[in-house]
Structures are given as structure tokens and as C-alpha cells.
């Protein structure tokens, strides 16, 4: 009989499943639960975008595109990045259309990181950076952001972690799970720390369109940072296109060229139907973004007001569609809090430690739900916290 332990890669076998996954397994088959767990929009992709995808099929556009993606789409992505975030990229040579933002992250890491390299990852953060770095043979170095700093990267803490082996810094703002953003001034301080190094920045800006009150600043737009920044982004969150799996990378030509080789061998090209839908989104979807953003903002404000009434401390999230309330004062670990809330009050939220140890004492609450649904869940949380 085959010995699978001899077959499977030890790097993969030793990789822990996502901490979010573990919690979701508890939810399986429970239809009595009101959850605020989902990390994707509750809107349907706007019809004109869906229609563009459908039309491409009707017109028989079922071929592979070029490896980097339809040139028209890449050019439009470059136009969009300039229009929205004052970024300058050559669509033909500096943009790669990927299968979601996730592939963009993987390409960036694998194109740069070698065994022995260190990658600084600020946490709490989305779950994929650490495994991607490990798969590339690199060493993740965790930078624990603090609630007192509103979960932003502190430049001095960053400086302290830099070694001669540091190859890459991950910046993921607006942030999942905290909803934190980093302003232009704060990013400039980060830029000062790395300006004279050979550290490349992977800036995951998938939530860049979802900021409330102030506009997103791309790290690549900070003076002198364009040359060392790989922007990973996509269509999922801004246009409610998660299922289309459309992401992209924008990076200086020399970096893009190497990432394109990886993409070419592993993926060939992103799905053509999705690329045509994305083309419509990026050309004519600015008003859709505004409509959805206004709705998220209303929910965000309502959520914060209710937390305040309940006496639950929550710093004001300025981006994405998550709030990250502090549940430390209830004397339970994040997992205990969330499991008891689930079992006793049938309400699901994600324990903060699923996004890194520094998330302990917090929970992620998604507001990609209707107000009615949010209200029901918050009623249950309110009842629960009264009892502890």
C-alpha cells in the first residue's frame, strides 16, 4: 500500500488549515444561526457587467487570451489606477490579469522570495500571506499591529524587524479583518524606513475602493515607492465580482516580466468570460462602486452606534466591510466568546485570533449583510454579553 507520508510535501502537510475554516466547520448544517462571518459583498454583480460576460459567450469569445490578459483590459486597468489613485502603469507591460487577488499575492511572493528570505507580515491580516511565504521557502516575520495604534503599522516597530535577510514587506490596507486604513502621511513614514533598502513591498489593495470618509492612498503613489511596490488588487470587493475570480497585479516592468512567467506556466491566462465582464466594470463601473460604498457606510455607522450602546469598544473602521470590536473585557478568549455566542445565542462571528495571535481579544464582524440581518445578529450579541 502506498505510504502517503512519503508522497506528500512536508511543507504542505505541516501547513495549518486557515483559522477561519476551523470556525466555519462548526457552522456546517446550522440553519438556525444568524452569522456576520462572510468576507464578500452581498450585492449581485451589476447587470451591465454580468451582461458583458454573457455577451462575450454569445459572441463565441471562448478562447485563451494572451497570458497577461486582454490588452484592452490591461490598458483600462492602468487608466483606472490613474483615474482613481494617481498611479502610472503601462497597461501593456506592467499589468497582469490574475485569477483573483489571491493569485496576484502568490505571484508577487514567489517571484521575489527565496529560501532564507524574510517577509514582514503585519497582523491581524488575511490568512494567505504566511502560507504563501512558506511555500516559497521564505520565513514569515510577524509584525503585531496594536489596537492602540488602530492596527496600523508602526514605523519604529517595522524598523526593529528589518534584517539583512528582509526581502519583502506586506501592506494590506484597507485591512481585513480590522477595517483599518493607513493615510498618506502614515505610509510616508513607512516609506522613510525602507527607502534606502532593497525591500520590495507587496501592497494588497483589494479593498481600496471601500474607504469611508477619506480616499485610499496607494503605497505605490508615495514618492519613490513606485519602483519597489507590487500592487495586488482585483474586482471582487469593489464591483461585487467575487465569483468571477478577477484580480490583477500592477508593478514595474522588470518585476511584472518575472511574475508573468509564473502566471504563464501555472495559470496560462485568467478566464476569458470574466475578463470581458471586468473590462465593462473597469470602464463603466465607477457609479456602481459609489452605490455599494454608500450602502456599506450606512451599515458601518449603524453597527458602530449599536456597539456604543451595548458598551462594546470598537475603534472606527475606515475601510473594507469589517468591524473588529474588542471583546477582551468579557474575560473569555476570542474562541470561547465566539463558540459560546454560537452555541448559546446562535450567532456567528469570527474570532480575532483566526487572523493572527494579535487578534486575540477581538472578533471580526462583517457588515456585508442587510441592516435587518445585522440587527438580528446584534440583538443576539447584546443578549449574550448581558449574561457574561
Amino acid at each position, binding site marked *: 500500500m502506498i505510504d502517503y507520508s512519503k508522497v506528500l510535501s512536508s511543507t504542505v502537510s505541516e501547513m495549518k488549515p486557515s483559522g*477561519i*475554516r476551523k470556525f*466555519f466547520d462548526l*457552522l456546517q448544517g446550522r440553519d438556525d444561526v444568524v452569522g456576520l*462571518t*462572510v*468576507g*464578500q459583498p*452581498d450585492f449581485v454583480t451589476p447587470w451591465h457587467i454580468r451582461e458583458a460576460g454573457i455577451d462575450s459567450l454569445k459572441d463565441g469569445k471562448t478562447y485563451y487570451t494572451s497570458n497577461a490578459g486582454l490588452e484592452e483590459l490591461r490598458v483600462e486597468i492602468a487608466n483606472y489606477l490613474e483615474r482613481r489613485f494617481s498611479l502610472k502603469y503601462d497597461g501593456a507591460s506592467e499589468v497582469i490579469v490574475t485569477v483573483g487577488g489571491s493569485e496576484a499575492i502568490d505571484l508577487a511572493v514567489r517571484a521575489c522570495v527565496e529560501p532564507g528570505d524574510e517577509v514582514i507580515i503585519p497582523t491581524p491580516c488575511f490568512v494567505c500571506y504566511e502560507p504563501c511565504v512558506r511555500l516559497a521557502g521564505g520565513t514569515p516575520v510577524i509584525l503585531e499591529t496594536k489596537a492602540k495604534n488602530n492596527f496600523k503599522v508602526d514605523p519604529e516597530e517595522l524598523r526593529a524587524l528589518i534584517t539583512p535577510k528582509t526581502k519583502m514587506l506586506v501592506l494590506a490596507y484597507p485591512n481585513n479583518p480590522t477595517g483599518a486604513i493607513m493615510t498618506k502621511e502614515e505610509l510616508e513614514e513607512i516609506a522613510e524606513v525602507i527607502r534606502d533598502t532593497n525591500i520590495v513591498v507587496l501592497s494588497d489593495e483589494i479593498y481600496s475602493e471601500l474607504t469611508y470618509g477619506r480616499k485610499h492612498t496607494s503605497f505605490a503613489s508615495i514618492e519613490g515607492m513606485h519602483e519597489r511596490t507590487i500592487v495586488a488588487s482585483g474586482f471582487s470587493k469593489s464591483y461585487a465580482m*467575487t465569483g468571477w475570480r478577477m484580480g490583477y497585479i500592477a508593478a514595474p516592468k522588470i518585476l511584472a516580466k518575472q511574475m508573468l512567467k509564473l502566471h504563464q506556466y501555472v495559470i496560462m491566462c485568467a478566464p476569458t468570460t470574466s475578463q470581458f465582464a471586468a473590462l465593462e466594470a473597469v470602464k463603466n463601473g465607477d457609479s456602481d462602486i459609489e452605490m455599494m460604498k454608500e450602502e456599506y457606510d*450606512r*451599515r458601518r*455607522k*449603524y453597527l458602530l*452606534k*449599536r456597539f456604543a450602546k451595548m458598551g462594546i469598544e470598537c475603534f472606527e473602521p475606515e475601510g473594507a466591510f469589517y468591524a473588529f470590536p474588542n471583546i477582551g473585557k468579557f474575560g473569555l478568549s476570542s474562541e470561547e466568546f465566539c463558540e459560546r455566542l454560537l452555541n448559546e445565542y446562535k450567532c456567528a462571528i469570527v474570532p480575532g485570533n483566526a487572523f493572527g495571535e494579535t487578534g486575540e481579544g477581538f472578533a471580526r464582524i462583517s457588515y456585508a449583510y442587510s*441592516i*435587518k440581518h445585522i*440587527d438580528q445578529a446584534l440583538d443576539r450579541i447584546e443578549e449574550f454579553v448581558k449574561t457574561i
Partner: protein
Amino acid sequence: MDKILNLLEQNATYTVEQLAAMCDRDEDELRATIDKYEKDGVILGYQALVDWDKTDREYVSAFIEVKITPKHDFGYDKVARTISQYPEVQSVYLMSGVFDLAVLIEGKTLREVAYFVTHKLSTLEDVMSCSTHFVLRKYKDKGVEYRVPDADIRGEL
């Protein structure tokens, strides 16, 4: 234009507390504003959208194109208001084009609708002709699709 009106048009069940929190407004001020909208006839009512096809209620509805006799010095208001008085009439619109009024009516049976058209509507002095179209199925009304909402099966990522 006040965003509150859009929000209430989308969902009349929003409470003043919810609306105030969502829009950064003071609750008392907002309550007074909504009261004024009601008083001024800006907000005329709050209704549920019911898909009667999913119930055992027997009903038919029809869309009637009505042509009105043109008269000197006479607007359409008078006849439109008269038609609006009938309780079976759901909507009355003044239209551009080949007919003048669009009247949406609901009745229990086809016979009831037919009776309304032949005995009440077409006999009105100023009504020149009626063309009645029965509704076979409603797909969308007031911006809402008439179908069972999809279950939330978004992946937990």
C-alpha cells in the same frame, strides 16, 4: 434631495433609530422631518410588496389604456381623479403617446374586471375608448423581483 426618502422607498421598515444612525442624523430631528413629509404628502404610505400568486387569494389584474375625449379648456385631472375614486383601481397615470390614461385595476375575477370596464369606466362621459390587457404574471414591481429570494450560500472565506 433627502437621502432618507430613497432609503424609506427601498425599505419602509427602517426605524427612525436605524435611519438616524445610518445617516448621521439626530433622531428627534429626523422624526420631525418624516412627520413633515407625511403631512405635506411627500410620503403617502408604507406598504408591503405581496406576491399574491404565492397565496390562495383569487384575483386578476388588468392594465387598461384609456382614451379621453379632447375638450377645450379641459385638463385630464378631473376624469383621472374620478377614475381614481374606484377602490378596484390601483394606479392611474397620465401618459404620452396614443392613449391618455393608463389604469391598473385589480378584481377578484375576470368577470368583475370586465364589469368594471364595461359598466363603470367606459360609461364615463369623457372616456372615448378602453383597451384592456390582462396581466398574466408579475415579474418585478417597485424595483423588486417577484421570486423567492436566493438563500445566502456565499462561501465563508
